[in-house]
């Protein structure tokens, strides 16, 4: 990993920790929340990724065959490998465009399998595993033909961030993908019962 990417990952880790703590406050919304709301809600807000702006009207959600809204005919690969639903948002920064897609899989094993399939779609020399990830997380980044892609997964959630433009920013792609998975996982946890004196 290049020094710049290492530095980016260190910053990234700090931001993720802060984000997970604040995202825990959202956990009270988990009960009864639709999958659509949960996935869309987990996509990073523009202000969470320094310098990037979320593109208005770019949110797309799909379940099963509805993934055609994101992938057109390519949806079959995702559905056939266990993707139940996905949400997508686009971000802009200068002359660059980023797209984040957060998938909800049938199982953690399915997330692992799909990630392996996606990783194999890049030239071997252009893919590297992501390091400095929390325990239970996996990820890779790839830079090929004018784009930086980062794929991160944990549990049933798999997020992919693609950045295209004059300047490839692998670290930013990693940050976006990690935020999406982190927020989704945090939203799944039940609210912690806060002990009061009456509880003893």
């Amino acid at each position, binding site marked *: 990993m290049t020094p710049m990417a290492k530095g980016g990952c260190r910053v990234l880790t700090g931001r993720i920790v802060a984000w997970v703590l604040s995202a825990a406050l959202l956990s009270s919304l988990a009960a009864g929340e639709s999958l659509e709301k949960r996935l869309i809600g987990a996509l990073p807000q523009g202000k969470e990724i320094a310098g990037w702006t979320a*593109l*208005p*009207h*770019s949110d*797309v959600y799909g379940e099963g*065959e509805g993934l*055609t*809204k*994101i*992938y*057109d*005919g*390519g*949806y*079959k*690969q995702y559905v056939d490998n266990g993707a139940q639903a996905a949400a997508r948002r*686009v971000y802009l920064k200068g002359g660059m*465009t980023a*797209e984040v897609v957060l998938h909800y899989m049938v199982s953690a094993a399915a997330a692992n399998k799909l990630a392996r399939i*996606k990783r*194999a*779609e*890049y*030239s071997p020399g252009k893919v590297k595993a992501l390091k400095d990830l929390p325990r239970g997380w996996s990820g890779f980044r*790839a830079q*090929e*033909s*004018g*784009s930086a*892609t980062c794929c991160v997964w944990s549990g049933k959630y798999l997020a992919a961030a*693609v950045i*295209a*433009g004059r300047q490839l920013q692998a670290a930013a792609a990693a940050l976006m993908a990690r935020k999406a998975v982190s927020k989704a996982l945090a939203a799944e946890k039940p609210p912690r019962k806060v002990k009061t004196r009456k509880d003893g």
Partner: protein
Amino acid sequence: MAKGISRREFLILAGQAGALLAGAGVVRSLGQSSKATAVVPRQRLGNPELLAVAHGDILGKSEREAEALLRACLEPLGGIKTFVAPGSKVVIKPNVAFMRTPEQASSTNPLLVTAMATLCLQAGPREVVIFDHTIDTPADVCLSMTGMVEAARKGKAQLVSGHEQSAYQQVSIPRGRVLTSAEVHRVVLGADVLINMPIAKVHGATGATLGMKNLMGVVWNRGVWHSSSSLDQCIADFSTAYPATLTVIDGQRVLLTNGPKGPGRTEDKHAVVAGVDPVAVDAYSAGLLGFAPERVAHIADAARMGVGQMDLRKVRVVKVS
């Protein structure tokens, strides 16, 4: 000079003929709506037994170089004037489905689209339109990111985005085995000349997306095709009713994995393939992706239905460089 009646005149006559046929009970069910217009395959211009393949690297080069390569590619087919008559309305249909840059090889190279618009204008048409119904939204960002906004500006063409459902018209597909009707954009229906300009790339559902698959972008509801019993058959069905006047495949940089959206592994083939037989063009171009044409089901389906020739031994391939 373009031979035969114009495509638009043909479709108008076909519609009238279809109405007569429908009255006689010959045209089958018009699908979802009884307002669907019946259509018969239009007359082809140019020689369907001829394929032209040009090799030359225009990636990152100038509009002039792209125009020179495209002109050289069309020369064996008789040049652009074989297809575009003075006063005609030309619609160019690139593949602009996703928010990807030209480098990512998910959309047609904008240099080639500009070149095609420029060549068409030299033949004296009334209007040149660049059209697509993008999958990614917002459409304006998609059209900008893929370079199509700039391509239209440089090519002095009108850019039309197909995101208004009211602009579509229900048409029947009489020979369709799975797809018997579709909502097609009126800009495409009103074209005298339809130039299909896809990029060659792999596709998660059909194996490859080339010319015939690219025409899925002229309909409103692609979901109907995806949820049907056979997407490949729908593609072939549609090609029986709406083959393009001319198909030009962008094989400059092809997407070899993670198609159709990408990103994925690409390869620079530096090729442009052109022809009037949509099956032959697709059959040849499948080779750019490493596929034998019979492995792409909709190419085989369309050949069986008589849309065109899949056996490249029966087609004359002229290579220019």
